[in-house]
């Protein structure tokens, strides 16, 4: 059987253009990279892993949710576009808030243009009008949007996903991400660490066996993982990182410089509009400085125009301490892995912030080697998540992923000391069983506090939660033997089980999380989201219509350029296409757009069997209508 070089170039063969899709009926599991700045989805098709794009060809979905005054919301690029106009109603970088308390985020919140408050149990909440949103709910909206785009690209519904998180996310942050998927109505089969996912994308072809360092610096988080790849086994030896270090922090440093130049202190700026404008400007300057030696902008300060310029040298001076922190993490991961830099076979850079020259230079200096080319820092994580999704659905049994727990887990013992039960970098799943007893006669319950972190004292670690072991049979003090099993599952999430050894009674345990949602809260939010489901359905229909409209406009125009139609027919079709394009640009009512799309369909249908119709159908079917090539058949 022969294949054309590109199956998409044959408009006649309707089955072939879908050759890369999973077979109908086969279970489709999306790999989703839920990023601080951008998110995206990928799947494994017959030709390997690929990213799923929106109708306009964009792969990256801005991780932004913006609320309208009437309570409706938009997600993605439409939300990002509103950032300057509605800064206090546009939520970005929510990943930095997830699974954390308001108190932990006080400094962070001062920089954000939208209001972060302390809600129930001191947890961080985003206040829009009189409604407090949990970071989980915002993340759920982003996940739903990514799911919708993926569904549009695949032409089918999907609800099973694999979601990535920073390797250094602790238990609370992982649980929160799981809850976000649940709230989005998604079945999250696995949480995968981002650098591990990137290593899958890098090493899946089987020619890269060896020891690899993955350096992942994104918008808000930093991870480094050391892995050994051999015969399809991806084994993480050690990981380290900082879940609050990324491109956002670099922007903030430039913003501080910019404000100082204008004679302000960063703390002074309370106006969300100004905060957002400064943040955007700083981000723009940072991006320019990755390729230029200096960048500048002019600021309109109420009539007077002021110029601000920054050199790359100054930028590097600003971010050097943060970059050095990432390098320290690398050293510590290498040490934990027992690997010398000379033993590394490859260095893989992931995350948008690795485009910064100082970052690259610092990694090269540490490892003594150039990073691997051919790994797209924006896409590798999603592609890896898709590969793991394929493993989970049985599509690829050759791959085995052995990941680790990033931070030690322990319980509070006498005197406020943490007794570590599971050490960091232990391969997961892993479990430890510890025996406890009672302190007074006839005691029937024991409180157990769980901590995560590397330090000795409770005060220096993060409390994950607490649980009460109930139902202990009344006995003299010290006599009951309660075996508590701490198990970290393949998602890196802790599960606790307990059993009284003498009686065999299984004690009931409900861990109350310190930094996340309780089961009741998740259920309540689920109910609320079902109530909103009708609105969501309309929203999704609107998105699908827009996608379809965009594809039709492109397809029609491309085809008209090639087709040899009578001028009057060309003109009517062009006019109908123009009407659709105008409505799309105006972002107006769905009904008007639907009418215009129907009209355009009718016009092109009149020439159904000629080239225009063929090209439009092809454009609608093709994954990326923008890339419509002129083919022999079309002529």
């Amino acid at each position, binding site marked *: 059987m022969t294949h054309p070089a590109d199956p998409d170039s044959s408009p006649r063969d309707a089955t072939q253009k879908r050759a890369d899709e999973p077979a109908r009926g086969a279970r489709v599991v999306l790999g989703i990279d839920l990023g601080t700045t951008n998110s995206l989805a990928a799947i494994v098709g017959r030709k390997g892993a690929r990213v799923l794009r929106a109708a306009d060809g964009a792969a990256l979905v801005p991780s932004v949710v913006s609320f309208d005054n009437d309570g409706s919301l938009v997600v993605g690029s439409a939300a990002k576009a509103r950032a300057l106009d509605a800064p206090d109603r546009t939520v970005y970088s929510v990943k930095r808030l997830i699974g954390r308390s308001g108190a932990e985020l006080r400094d962070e919140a001062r920089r954000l243009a939208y209001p972060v408050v302390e809600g129930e149990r001191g947890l961080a909440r985003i206040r829009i009008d009189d409604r407090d949103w949990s970071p989980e709910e915002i993340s759920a909206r982003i996940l739903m949007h990514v799911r919708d785009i993926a569904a549009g690209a695949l032409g089918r519904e999907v609800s099973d996903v694999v979601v990535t998180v920073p390797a250094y996310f602790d238990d609370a942050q992982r649980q929160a991400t799981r809850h976000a998927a649940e709230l989005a109505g998604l079945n999250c089969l696995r949480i995968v660490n981002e650098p591990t996912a990137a290593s899958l994308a890098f090493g899946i072809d089987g020619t890269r066996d060896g020891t690899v360092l993955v350096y992942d610096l994104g918008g808000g988080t930093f991870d480094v993982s050391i892995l050994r790849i051999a015969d399809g086994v991806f084994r993480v030896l050690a990981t380290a990182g900082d879940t609050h270090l990324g491109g956002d922090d670099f922007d903030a440093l430039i913003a501080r410089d910019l404000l100082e130049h204008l004679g302000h202190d960063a703390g002074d700026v309370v106006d969300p509009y100004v905060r957002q404008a400064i943040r955007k400007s700083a981000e723009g300057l940072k991006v320019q400085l990755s390729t230029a030696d200096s960048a500048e902008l002019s600021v309109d300060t109420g009539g007077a125009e002021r110029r601000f310029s920054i050199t790359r040298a100054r930028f590097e001076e600003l971010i050097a301490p943060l970059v050095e922190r990432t390098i320290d993490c690398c050293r510590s991961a290498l*040490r934990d892995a027992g690997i010398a830099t000379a033993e590394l076979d490859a260095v893989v850079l992931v995350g948008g912030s690795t485009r910064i020259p100082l970052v690259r230079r610092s990694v090269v200096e540490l490892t003594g080697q150039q990073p691997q080319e051919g790994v797209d820092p924006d896409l590798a994580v999603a592609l890896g998540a898709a590969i793991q999704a394929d493993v989970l659905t049985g599509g690829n049994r050759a791959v085995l992923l052995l990941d680790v727990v990033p931070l030690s887990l322990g319980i509070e013992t006498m005197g406020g000391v943490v007794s570590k039960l599971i050490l960091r970098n232990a391969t*997961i799943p892993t479990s430890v069983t510890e025996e406890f007893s009672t302190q007074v006669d006839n005691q029937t319950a024991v409180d157990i506090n769980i901590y995560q972190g590397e330090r000795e004292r409770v005060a220096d670690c993060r409390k994950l939660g607490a649980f009460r072991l109930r139902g202990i049979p009344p006995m003299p003090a010290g006599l009951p033997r309660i075996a508590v099993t701490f*198990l970290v599952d393949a998602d890196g999430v802790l599960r606790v089980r307990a059993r009284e050894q003498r009686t065999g009674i299984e004690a009931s345990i409900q861990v109350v999380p310190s930094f996340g949602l309780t089961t009741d809260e998740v259920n309540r939010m689920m109910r609320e989201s079902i109530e909103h489901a009708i609105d969501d359905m309309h929203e999704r229909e609107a998105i699908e219509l827009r996608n379809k409209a965009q594809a039709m406009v492109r397809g029609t125009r491309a085809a008209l350029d090639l087709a040899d139609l009578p001028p009057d027919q060309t003109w009517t079709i062009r006019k109908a296409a123009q009407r659709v394009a105008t409505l799309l640009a105006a972002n107006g009512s769905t009904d008007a757009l639907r009418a215009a799309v129907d009209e355009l369909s009718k016009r092109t249908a009149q020439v159904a069997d000629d080239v225009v119709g063929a090209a439009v159908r092809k454009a609608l079917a093709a994954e990326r209508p923008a890339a419509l090539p002129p083919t022999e058949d079309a002529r």
Partner: protein
Amino acid sequence: MSSDPFRTLGLAPDLHLDRGELERRYVELSRASHPDHHALDADAARLSELLDRSAAINDAYRTLADRFRRAEALLELRAPGTLDAHKQLDPDFLLAAMELAERVATVGDAGRTALAAEVDALLDADFAAIAAALDAGDHGGAATRLHQSRYHRKARSDLRSGDSR
């Protein structure tokens, strides 16, 4: 609760096991029971069983990959309770161990490599003595030396975490 890591990995209890064989068994068993490979074809009870099994395999591997922990496991297998019964250490040894800990805590970058080599030599000597005691059936002797080696292992790990400061 099965605590025999050799049995978990299907290996003969042997202090000098073949590292290559250990790796092969580990990967083979992990492939068979990792929850990732049964995400869709197993029910909740089976998944929970696989999770426990995978955890046991990982934990057994971690024990056997470390020569001292391997020796501890072997001793527990041959003479259960011996380790616990021999916790009492010679005061002279404890004094020397405290001096070593002090040197580790205060060593500068210049002396670190030499001190690490010194500790490595102590560990090698410990291991040789433990192996000999186990061979001779001297379980008490092996237990005492295992307890002593813990101080040297601690010193080695402290030196390592100070490496890049």
